[in-house]
């Protein structure tokens, strides 16, 4: 069976890391990822079924893995070799189309009784992701046993499967998983209707977060920092009230919140002769009620800290990795910094995240975010495209496995 | 050639030492000829025309812009204000300044703006600067000094100065007639006013401050410090004005400039308008009281160095002057 596989090879990780410094996504050619011929995974126990992927998205965390940049934190919670791909819409042997909820919680690991989080359905907080009947692996796509989406077949536990409604296209269905991540982050912002919410980044997660905030929170001002023209347009369509370049975000937030900024008062009789736009790190006195950081870089987090109001909340939706950020504002302004990793149960609406995500994808028409699909053998091009999606006018890149020749033989 | 010793009468030809004859040596004066007294060539009669020829002027330019300017900057760190008042002034002018120190002349010469700086002569006391040929030549060359008789109005030196002004030379003059002995000024003499009336050129009053403390009269060596030169608006002689009256106006103007330099322009103008500008010559009385009063006139810190916010309500308390 054809599959893209990540091997545990330190030299390859190192080479990928070096290559990705030249251009993001370059790690695909030289790194730990290889197109391999492997045996299809066998169901590890009762309640497991074979899923043949139809579309499998490329996520930012996948890119980090391919480029050798994933955090060492993941070391104990993955098992090599694994097939990446956790944004999966596939079909069961009975022809039913399903979306995979990739977290490998207690239920999939045959741990009974489940941990308290899993008991509440909050899978993303499961405490047993390295134990039970499976190899370690926080999600399908990081576990050596289950296989992953970037192949022709994987195995999934019944508890992981969500049936796709007949009317929903594969393109829409593949957006359910990222939409669920983003929507969890959006709901964690805990903003009110009168509030000002900022979304930093307008990639897949950012745009989904915008759609989610628009649908469930509808804050008075929803500002988005977006780099590329396509992102500007989509963010506006999905409900942002203001879309600005990331560098102008502090100014826009200042305007929207009516706050002031430090550092430009005039005790100096000879004003600086320097010219240019605003500094991207203009420090505000007030700021937004909540900032949803869908980038996860040191720059974005520093900017989030500069534009959130004292006592406000920053939700990290983008995967951060090791960052060097001055946390003084976090301390001095008593800002809450919370993470939003995956999905589970949303206490607000009182429903499972994935159920909400299905609604969001359908109602907001998020299928439009799937910009391009590639066959498996063009994975180098696919990953390069995904790594530069914004600049190339794209949002979500996915592997299309529906037309793989081998598919029907498995 | 005034110092030729009168030759003793030759006793006899036998003892003649071989020496070159007349064209090679000075002629002997025939006996019986009464030599007229030699015209004095120093003092007020020193002829400075050579110091106004191109070569000397270029030497002076080099000296002034080189060592003198550097020396003045090192010693007196001058602050020059009021130069804008000379805007629009054309042609020759008489610059009249108060006088504390020998440094005043080089300070002022380096302070004068173009085009006057290199076309100005300094009226120097004939009895001080022109006592012998060496000092005369040095004064004439280095600062363009011309000898002026300060003890009396002397027709010839006045004529000569007037002629030079008519030729387009400007004149720097210290109407007090000498350096201040105790820090206070003295009354003005009429020379500057007389020359201005006679040649119909304007008088620019100048106030110099600080040089007295750096190298005052009687000081053995200079102590570096700061000085301030304030130029006043040119005063034009009025029709039918007497030299005395005009001299009074010049003195008042310099006094107002002194007031301006120690306080500020507006207060100085107000006092000048009321006729209450502090006198340059200080209070009458014993010398300790004069010295005491001098201390109160010390210039406060420059206002420019402490800025204030624009609004009157928030302005910091201004130190009482």
């Amino acid at each position, binding site marked *: 069976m054809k599959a893209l596989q990540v091997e545990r090879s330190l030299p390859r990780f190192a080479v990928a890391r070096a290559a990705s410094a030249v251009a993001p996504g370059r790690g695909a050619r030289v790194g730990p990822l290889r197109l391999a011929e492997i045996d299809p995974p066998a169901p590890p126990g009762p309640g497991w079924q074979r899923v043949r992927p139809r579309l499998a998205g490329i996520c930012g965390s996948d890119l980090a893995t391919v480029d050798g940049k994933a955090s060492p934190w993941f070391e104990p919670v993955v098992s090599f070799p694994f097939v990446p791909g956790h944004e999966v819409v596939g079909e069961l042997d009975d022809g039913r189309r399903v979306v995979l909820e990739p977290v490998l919680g207690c239920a999939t690991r045959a741990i009974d009784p489940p941990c308290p989080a899993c008991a509440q359905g909050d899978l993303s907080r499961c405490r047993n992701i390295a134990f039970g009947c499976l190899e370690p692996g926080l999600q399908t796509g990081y576990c050596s046993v289950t296989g992953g989406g970037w192949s022709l077949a994987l195995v999934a536990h019944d508890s992981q499967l969500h049936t796709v409604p007949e009317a929903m296209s594969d393109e829409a269905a593949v957006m359910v998983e990222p939409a669920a991540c983003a929507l969890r982050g959006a709901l964690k912002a805990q903003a009110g209707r009168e509030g000002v919410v900022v979304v930093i980044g307008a990639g897949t997660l950012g745009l989904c977060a915008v759609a989610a905030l628009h649908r469930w929170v509808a804050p008075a001002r929803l500002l988005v920092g977006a780099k590329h023209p396509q992102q500007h347009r989509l963010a506006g369509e999905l409900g942002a009230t203001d879309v600005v370049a990331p560098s102008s975000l502090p100014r826009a937030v200042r305007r929207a919140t009516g706050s002031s900024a430090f550092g*430009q008062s*005039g005790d100096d009789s000879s004003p600086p002769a320097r*010219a240019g736009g605003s500094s991207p790190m203009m420090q505000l006195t007030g700021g937004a009620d909540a900032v949803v950081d869908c980038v996860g870089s040191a720059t974005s987090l520093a900017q989030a800290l500069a534009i959130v109001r004292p006592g406000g909340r920053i939700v990290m939706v983008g995967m951060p990795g090791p960052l060097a950020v001055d946390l003084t504002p976090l301390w001095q302004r008593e800002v809450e910094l919370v993470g939003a990793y995956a999905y589970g149960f949303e206490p607000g609406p009182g429903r499972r995240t994935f159920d909400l995500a299905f609604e969001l994808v359908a109602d907001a028409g998020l299928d439009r975010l799937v910009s391009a699909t590639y066959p498996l053998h063009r994975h180098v091009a696919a990953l390069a495209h995904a790594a530069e999606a914004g600049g190339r006018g794209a949002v979500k890149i996915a592997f299309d496995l529906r037309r793989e020749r081998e598919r029907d033989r498995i | 050639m005034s110092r030729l010793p009168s030759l003793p009468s030759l006793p006899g030809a036998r003892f003649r030492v071989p020496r070159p004859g007349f064209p090679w040596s000075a002629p002997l004066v025939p006996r019986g000829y009464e030599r007229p007294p030699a015209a004095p060539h120093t003092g007020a009669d020193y002829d400075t025309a050579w110091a106004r020829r191109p070569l000397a002027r270029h030497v002076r330019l080099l000296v002034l812009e080189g060592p003198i300017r550097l020396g003045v900057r090192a010693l007196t760190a001058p602050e020059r204000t009021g130069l804008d008042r000379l805007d*629009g002034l054309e042609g020759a002018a008489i610059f009249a300044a108060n006088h504390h120190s020998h440094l005043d002349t080089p300070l002022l010469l380096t302070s004068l703006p173009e085009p006057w700086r290199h076309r100005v002569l300094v009226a120097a006391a004939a009895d001080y600067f022109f006592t012998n040929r060496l000092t005369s030549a040095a004064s004439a060359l280095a600062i363009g000094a011309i000898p002026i008789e300060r003890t009396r109005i002397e027709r010839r030196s006045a004529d000569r100065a007037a002629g030079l002004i008519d030729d387009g030379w400007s004149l720097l003059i210290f109407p007090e007639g000498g350096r201040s002995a105790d820090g206070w000024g003295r009354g003005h003499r009429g020379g500057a006013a007389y020359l201005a009336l006679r040649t119909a050129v304007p008088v620019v009053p100048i106030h110099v401050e600080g040089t007295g403390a750096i190298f005052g009269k009687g000081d053995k060596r200079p102590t570096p410090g700061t000085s301030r030169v304030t130029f006043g*608006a040119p005063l034009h002689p009025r029709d039918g004005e007497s030299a005395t009256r005009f001299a009074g106006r010049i003195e008042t103007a310099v006094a107002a400039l002194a007031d301006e330099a120690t306080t500020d322009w507006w207060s100085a103008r107000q006092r000048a308008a009321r006729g209450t500008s502090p006198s340059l010559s200080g209070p009458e009385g014993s010398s300790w009281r004069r010295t005491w009063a001098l201390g109160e006139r010390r210039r406060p810190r420059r206002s*420019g160095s402490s800025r204030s916010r*624009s609004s009157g309500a928030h302005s910091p308390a201004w130190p009482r002057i």
Partner: protein
Amino acid sequence: MSPRPGFVLEVDRSTPPTLFMHGNGYRLEHLPVGSRIVYPPEPLPVVRDIDGAIRDALLHPVDSDPLPALLFPGMRLTIAFDDISLPLPPMRRPDVRQRVIEAVLDLAAEAGVDDVHLIAALALHRRMTEAELRHAVGDRVYDAFAPRGLLYNFDAEDPDALASLGETSQGEEVEISKRAAESDLLVYVNINLVAMDGGHKSTATGLASYRSLRHHHNVRTMQHSRSFMDQHRSELHSSNWRMGEVIRNAGVKIFQIETTLNNDTFPKPFDFLQKREWEWSLRDRSSYLASTKALARTPDRVRRSIFQSVLAPHNMTGVNAGDVEAVHELTTAKVMEQQLVHVEGQADILTLGLPHICPYNVHSVMNPILVMCTGLGYFFNLYRRRPLVREGGVLIVSHPTPWAFHPVHHPSYIDFFEEVLTETTDPLEIEKTYEQSFAEDEWYRHLYRTSYAYHGVHPFYMWYWGAHALQHLGGVIIVGGDAKAVRRLGFKPATTMGDALEMASDVVGRDPSLTHFHCPPLMLAEVT
């Protein structure tokens, strides 16, 4: 030789290329044969004895008692003066304001006046720095008054320093500096660089608050000012005159002193910039070649500081003092004498070369919004009777239009550019939707009052200034500008003058008539 009047040249095959100012630089452009070039008159001679003329004007004012008769001990005297926006480029020291203010203060000292305030009448402009104030009023006046807090920038956002004087017949509120309103005499020291300046606009605008200014600094007024350089056909001036009446009726006594300057704009060796091209000497041509080559190799920032350090050799051609209206009539006549050029007929295309400076970027950056204001606001409106370009015609502007803002001087401009112009460029829409939120933004208010920032609403006024032109023109093309910035302004970018003319032909046809307005030096076209 008496100065030659301005004139209109028709370009033929022997005409040398034409000089276009181009921001911090200049270019030579070939204009099509048959184009017309409007040249300004040569500089008028300067008054010989400036201080004497000022004193004479104060002692023999127009329609007013001599100044000494208006001064008395114990009175409150306020002297207001024009701010950094005048004159352009800044003049060499001593500034004419310094001369006038010193003359006034001399008389005040003689009259025994003690209570004197000096106010920089900057309305919603940025505060002047110490160096700028020193340049305008001179060190003597600055040192005497500023440390005591008696010389200061007007603050239109200080509620305690404003006085409401009532409303005009048309319901326009008049709110000006309290100190000025409560003084026994307000002396206004003006520099009348263009025909728009001076008159009642001095006090009613220069010392007024936003509450008062919004009644004439708005789109409707600007669209009905044809042009605002012609005070008889300017709604801007009608409104200011109405306010002037309210101020007078409220008992504020104004002694107006207006000065006019000649248009001697560029110092040597850049004086060729104001010469007619065919009269350039060998030295001029070498200066042009050397300076353009050198500037092309100079970083923008250095170029900017070179150009911003230019001090113009212009000086006073006249001074009048006394009653506001009577004085302003004489002043306007003098301005016309210097600036008026007769032009016959309108053209399909008007070309302009914008210089490095406009009233709002002295010691600062000419940002895209100011480019719009200078081209479509100021230069377009330098006409009487009819615009130089026909209705529906095209304006071609030469300026690099860099995407650059001075962060201290123009904070609200940056937000205006990012927040407003990305949505709309329609002045009416902008006024309706955004003006209030910018005008009342606390941060802008804070920066205006304590830093050196233009008021939050100021970029709106810049945009309104071009409202008449936007309404009148069929298209605007900017040659040599930053394409993104130009598009953001709603205009079309062109790389060369040739391209621009091609693009213009889409609007005005294949064989358009073209007029080039060879400004600066400043002039005013009387179009018949």
